[in-house]
């Protein structure tokens, strides 16, 4: 059997190995490409004091899963202009709580003590995963937009308690008479001013260059000049579409407000009565309590009870919405309510007086104003609404910017969005290449060795260990297929004394002699080319690239080796040699035939003792 030469096997199958590797890697690449996914993460932290207890600034339960809501995801998709389904994004968005090292330590310490750990994470990781159809960039962009949308939404929902007023309806005059519309405009200005007061006047927007103070003073100026001018013109000229309807409106308004006022005054009287009862009972209770405690202490009671209660702690009390409850006792609350009834009644008084003033002004108006007068006031009111809505537009921008800055104090991003590839295709391909190459080479070695084994079984002569006649035929066919020969020699070796040896020493001795000759020829074949056993005591040497002289050298080498051999019985070996150029024959079949016609050369002539062998 042939030697175990790894390189020979690999070399034999190299193209197949490379082709299999390329094909395998292509399929692997396609598979990995389909399995590829991209994910981007952002870390956020809730900063409000109730966050560790799982509460939002407004006191409701903190639920970071709201980031996955369709409202937020939908708005983020609209922001980025990405063509993705809201549900797909929602399904691939995860929000996980992250405990900081301090929180982790605290948790472990409490658990070790056997206490319950109730604090909730304030840090969360928002992770968005997109499949192979999208990109890393897209994941990063989208997760940033989602978090930004969430921040705005969270701010409006839980941080910003004051609500922005709405803009004025530009078609107000289509629905209301002029004076009523002016009342509504006045109310709208008041609500905008209330909103500004609640925000504080110092904030200045970088987008508009305006501060709340600027907007407040602008609104006040509009009210004191434009509004007043139009209003007085309308009142003094009695501008109306339907005077009777207007009078009815204000008469009804006065009646309603008067009823409310009476109700408030009645409630105030009731409250006064309640306060007197409350005061009496509280004084009695205080005197009793004070007397009891003094009797226990030193027996000197004090009717005022001023030293009766000293609190150990100052409490901060919260209502069900986690809003701080002012530490105010019931007596103060009752007193406040009592005052508020009167205050509301006085506000109604003021409004009733305003309505009565209007009624007086329109008392003498019997018909609708002329179209020209109406048009003049109409245009003035439209101009006024336009001016106010311009200011409102600016207020909206400033308010939004203010809200954003307020929200940033309650929830913040702790790490910028970063995106990653889920599958490292390059690494997997490199590993795949190594794997395919390894498998290919191993397969080539196994197959090559198996081929060697098969060759040995099918194509090796068992006595000489050389390729059999079948193998010689295949070799001849293979050479023939390769085309015309270049320098090529054929040598036929003949063992002429085999019959004599068989007859004299037995068949086993003949086989032994052939085996020893086979070993020498195997060594020779490695240096010169193919040598096979052609049956009939013949050996066929097919020597590619071998000149006639070199072929003779080979015969001399074989003769030399036979002389050196230790075997008892040696073969008588003759040869016929043919070379392609020498015989001008370049087809293997012809060259072999021509070779048999050449003169026989004695390669080795054994001594008589060698031939006799054991008889010696």
């Amino acid at each position, binding site marked *: 059997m042939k030697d175990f030469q790894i390189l020979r096997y690999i070399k034999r199958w190299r193209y197949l190995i490379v082709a299999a590797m390329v094909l395998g890697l292509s399929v692997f690449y396609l598979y990995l490409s389909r399995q590829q996914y991209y994910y981007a993460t952002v870390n956020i932290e809730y900063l409000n004091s109730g966050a560790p207890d799982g509460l939002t600034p407004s006191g409701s339960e903190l639920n970071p899963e709201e980031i996955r809501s369709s409202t937020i995801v939908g708005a983020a998709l609209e922001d980025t202009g990405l063509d993705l389904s809201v549900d797909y994004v929602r399904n691939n968005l995860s929000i996980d709580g992250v405990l900081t090292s301090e929180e982790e330590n605290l948790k472990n310490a409490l658990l070790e003590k056997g206490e319950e750990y109730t604090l909730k994470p304030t840090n969360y990781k928002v992770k968005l995963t997109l499949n192979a159809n999208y990109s890393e960039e897209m994941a990063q962009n989208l997760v940033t937009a989602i978090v930004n949308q969430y921040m705005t939404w969270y701010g409006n929902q839980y941080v910003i308690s004051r609500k922005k007023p709405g803009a004025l309806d530009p078609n107000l005059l289509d629905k209301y008479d002029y004076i009523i519309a002016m009342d509504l405009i006045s109310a709208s200005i008041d609500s905008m001013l209330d909103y500004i007061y609640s925000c504080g006047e110092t904030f200045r927007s970088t987008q508009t260059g305006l501060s709340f103070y600027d907007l407040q003073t602008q609104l006040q100026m509009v009210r004191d000049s434009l509004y007043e001018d139009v209003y007085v*013109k309308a009142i003094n000229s009695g501008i109306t579409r339907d005077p009777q309807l207007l009078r009815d409106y204000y008469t009804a308004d006065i009646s309603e407000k008067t009823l409310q006022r009476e109700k408030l005054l009645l409630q105030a009287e009731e409250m006064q009565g309640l306060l007197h009862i409350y005061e009496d009972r509280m004084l009695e209770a205080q005197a009793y309590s004070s007397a009891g405690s003094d009797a226990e202490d030193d027996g000197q009671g004090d009717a005022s009870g001023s030293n009766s209660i000293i609190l150990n702690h100052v409490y901060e009390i919260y209502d069900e919405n986690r809003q701080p409850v002012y530490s105010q006792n019931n007596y103060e609350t009752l007193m406040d309510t009592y005052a508020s009834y009167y205050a509301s009644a006085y506000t109604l008084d003021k409004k009733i007086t305003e309505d009565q003033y209007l009624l007086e002004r329109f008392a003498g108006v019997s018909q609708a104003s002329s179209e020209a007068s109406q048009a003049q006031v109409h245009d003035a009111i439209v101009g006024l609404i336009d001016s106010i809505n311009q200011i409102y537009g600016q207020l909206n921008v400033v308010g939004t910017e203010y809200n954003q800055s307020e929200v940033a104090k309650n929830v913040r991003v702790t790490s910028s969005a970063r995106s990653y590839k889920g599958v490292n295709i390059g690494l997997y391909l490199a590993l795949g290449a190594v794997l395919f190459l390894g498998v290919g080479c191993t397969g080539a070695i196994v197959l090559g060795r198996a081929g060697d084994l098969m060759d040995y079984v099918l194509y090796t002569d068992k006595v000489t260990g050389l390729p059999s006649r079948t193998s010689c035929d295949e070799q001849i066919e293979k050479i023939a297929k390769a085309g015309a020969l270049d320098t090529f020699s054929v040598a036929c070796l003949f063992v002429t004394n085999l019959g004599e040896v068989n007859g004299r020493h037995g068949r086993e001795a003949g086989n032994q002699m052939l085996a020893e000759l086979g070993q020498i020829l195997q060594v020779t074949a490695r240096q010169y080319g193919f040598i096979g056993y052609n049956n009939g005591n013949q050996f066929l040497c097919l020597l590619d690239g071998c000149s006639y002289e070199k072929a003779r050298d080979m015969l001399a080498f074989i003769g030399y080796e036979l002389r050196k051999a230790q075997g008892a019985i040696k073969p008588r070996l003759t040869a016929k040699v043919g070379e392609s150029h020498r015989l001008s024959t370049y087809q293997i079949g012809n060259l072999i035939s021509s070779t048999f016609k050449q003169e026989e050369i004695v390669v080795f002539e054994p001594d008589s003792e060698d031939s006799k062998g054991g008889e010696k």
Partner: protein
Amino acid sequence: MSQLISRVLLTVKKYFFRLVLFSLIFGAAFCTFCYTRSSRSASVILAFTYPNASDGLYPNGTYFNAYNILTEEVLQKGIQNAGLTGRVSPTVLAEEITIRPRSDASLITTQYVVTYQAGKEDALGAVSAEGLLSSVMYAYIQHFHDTYSNDQVVLNLDMMEDEDLEYMDRVNYFNVALNQLQKYLSAQQVNDKDFISSDGTSFQDLINIVERYRTTSLKEIKSIITERGIAHSRSQYTQRLNYRIWNLGNTYEYNRKMQQLYKKIIEEYEAKLTSVVFIPALDSQREFYMSKTKIGIDIHALSATDYEEKAEEVQRQIKQTDQYIDAIAGTGGALAVISSQRVDRLIESLEQQLDATMEQVRQVEKEYSRYKNRNYVTVKPVNSGFMERIGIKKGIVLTGALDVVLVLYLALRPAKRKGGEPQ
């Protein structure tokens, strides 16, 4: 293996010059390709160094978002700056620009690598990729300062300049504008007390100018208007003032009632239920004194005082308006015309002075903004070296890899026979 190595070495020896030649030709071709390609791509490092940047906020305290670079407004402006309007679309450009955090640290990134790779559709013409990216960055920095960083005052001066408005309304608009300007300048002065512009103007100087307008020029105009009873439409304006007096009267009544209410409430408190506790505290001079706990009476007393002050202020306004009405009624003829003309001149002069002051404010604002924002956003180009542009490292690695493959092929390929059957 040793057989393989010896074969490889023999092959290298045999084909050495041809291999060197191949490497040089392939390497040169690859580097040329990289160089050509690099002219259609550019990268910059965008760094944010303002105080809030590491908290993920803009200078104005709102949330930072690096992807605002890719907004249509910024890209359109960048394309316009580069002179490529109509040749490069903002939508396509947005897809060709990538923004990546510069580091992988799990903190808020303040540095980003912005890369632009021109697509086939982009007709850059004579403009390089670096040129277009720089234009976009310039547009972004402008947008950044305008939207998130600049602190500029915007005054609505239209109403003051409306000559159809009543004199007193115009004066009031002036007053409002001066108040707005003064507040803005005071806030800027608090931010940076030491800032002085190149012409030696400080915020305090501007505050003084505005204060002077208010206390002298405007006061003078106002006094002429009220003392001489100047009005465009005397009867109409008188009606307005009468309504105002009526309205103020109504408000005065309300304030008085509220003041009386809180007095009454205080009186109704039962003395024995309003015990107080004295607590040692520090006063404004950091001296110890005994402070008492706050109770409802304190709050109601303050409310009563507040309403009393309001009522008095309303009373003052009523008197002032009354005098103005009297003045309007008592004037007329040539004197009123002369006075009106004088007021017109004074208002015009004040308008001019205010315009000049606003110019000065803008200049100081601009310089202050430049000084304050000088390092807020910085842009630094990357990959501008020649060796990096020709992709020298990649070229060497790729050529080397190809040489290895080639040598292995040559070493392992089967030997071919030469010649053939002669005819």
